[in-house]
């Protein structure tokens, strides 16, 4: 049985579960994890903010029914789809410079200290530089905190595939942290 057949079987099994409505009142609980995931995908804090906002806008557009899936896993999948949609759209048009907005300069006590933010930015940039399949596995499991099973469901791949990709993502990240080239295999 091929990987896609496995994924199809899994999806079919998932759709046989009873549907429940995604509760918009609890979506805000996941904003920190989504923000970290978005930053790791984009490699830029500003793009991450826009991506999370677009994700919430998309999810809140209409009532959503979920089958056998956690809210966070579903949100991560929407975030990932939104990210790739934005990438495709951005590739088709020139990107304007962002306009300064004086009114958004509100004191943010949740912001990290500048020196911490610098290190954090470097780490996010390293993660964002990983090949797509590796980065997605790392973001789902290590950054967002999904279980291997939830990550597999969110990314629509087998659990074993997630685990292998995660291993390789971590290897590459560890080498990058030491400023060494990665020695392991290319993305499958």
């Amino acid at each position, binding site marked *: 049985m091929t990987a896609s057949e496995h994924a199809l079987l899994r999806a079919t099994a998932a759709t046989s579960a009873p549907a429940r409505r995604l509760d918009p*009142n609890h*979506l805000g609980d996941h904003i920190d994890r*989504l*923000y970290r995931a978005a*930053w790791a995908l984009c490699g830029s804090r500003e793009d991450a*903010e826009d991506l999370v906002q677009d994700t919430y806008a998309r999810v809140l557009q209409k009532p959503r029914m979920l089958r056998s899936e956690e809210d966070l896993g579903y949100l991560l999948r929407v975030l990932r789809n939104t990210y790739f949609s934005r990438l495709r759209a951005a590739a088709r048009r020139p990107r304007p410079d962002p306009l300064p907005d004086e*009114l958004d300069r509100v004191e943010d006590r949740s912001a990290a200290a500048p020196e911490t933010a610098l290190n954090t930015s470097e780490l996010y940039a390293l993660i964002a530089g990983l090949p797509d399949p590796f980065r997605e596995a790392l973001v789902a499991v*290590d950054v967002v905190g999904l279980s291997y099973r939830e990550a597999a469901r969110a990314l629509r791949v087998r659990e074993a595939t997630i685990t292998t990709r995660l291993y390789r993502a971590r290897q590459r990240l*560890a080498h990058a942290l030491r400023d060494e080239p990665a020695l392991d295999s290319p993305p499958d």
Partner: protein
Amino acid sequence: MFIRSRQRRAIERDLARLADGTLEPGRRERVERKVADSYELQGRLGDQRRAVAATRALAAERAPLALRLRRRALADRSRTRSAAFALGLSGVLAALVLMLGSLGGSQGVLTVAEAATIAVRSPTTVVAEPRDDAATLPRVSAAGLPFPYWEDRFGWVATGVRSDEVGGRRLTTVFYRSHGREIAYTIVPGSSLPAVPHARTTARGGVVVHSSMEGGRRVVTWERRGHTCVLSGSGVPLAALVKLAAWRGHGAIPY
């Protein structure tokens, strides 16, 4: 070759799970023994653990305040849309009842644009002067909310007040004047007004403000204790309106 590739992947999966503690106990012992016998596997496991530690340190990173406010504004709009849909449905039912002659009047969904039209009307009552150091106007309130006294702080003098019934709601409006320009501050009691499409959302001092243009007037809306406030003016900068909207009068203006 195929078998070696499968074995390699199996050990990679074991190392990944061993590093983050999700490897099942029975298998864990076997893998740990294997790692203890191999410098290469020890190195790989070390890499896995370094990467896990680095990414877990990111968990302290929180979404910025501006993003949280924007998400909340999106959720509010979504709720307003649902409420508007429900109101619209009840409006259709009311129209059916009207056709049967059971009702004599109609009540549509009040919009920001309708609320802002009051701004071009004239005040009907004067506003009393507040006592010294007051942040609110005396004897003028709506839904239990006082109107701000902006003269000392911002130079906007309260010139009058009027009350209107629009869409079944009692709207109270205070007019302010400064350097020949006039602005109107309306409090709309009850549920939130439907969001204006394409309105811009900004945040200042923790207050989420939506801005738009209605009939040539710049209009900002925000909420105080669940009631919608509408502030509008012609030729007045958006920043000035937002500043006024977010002013809490050192706690005297309830939000």
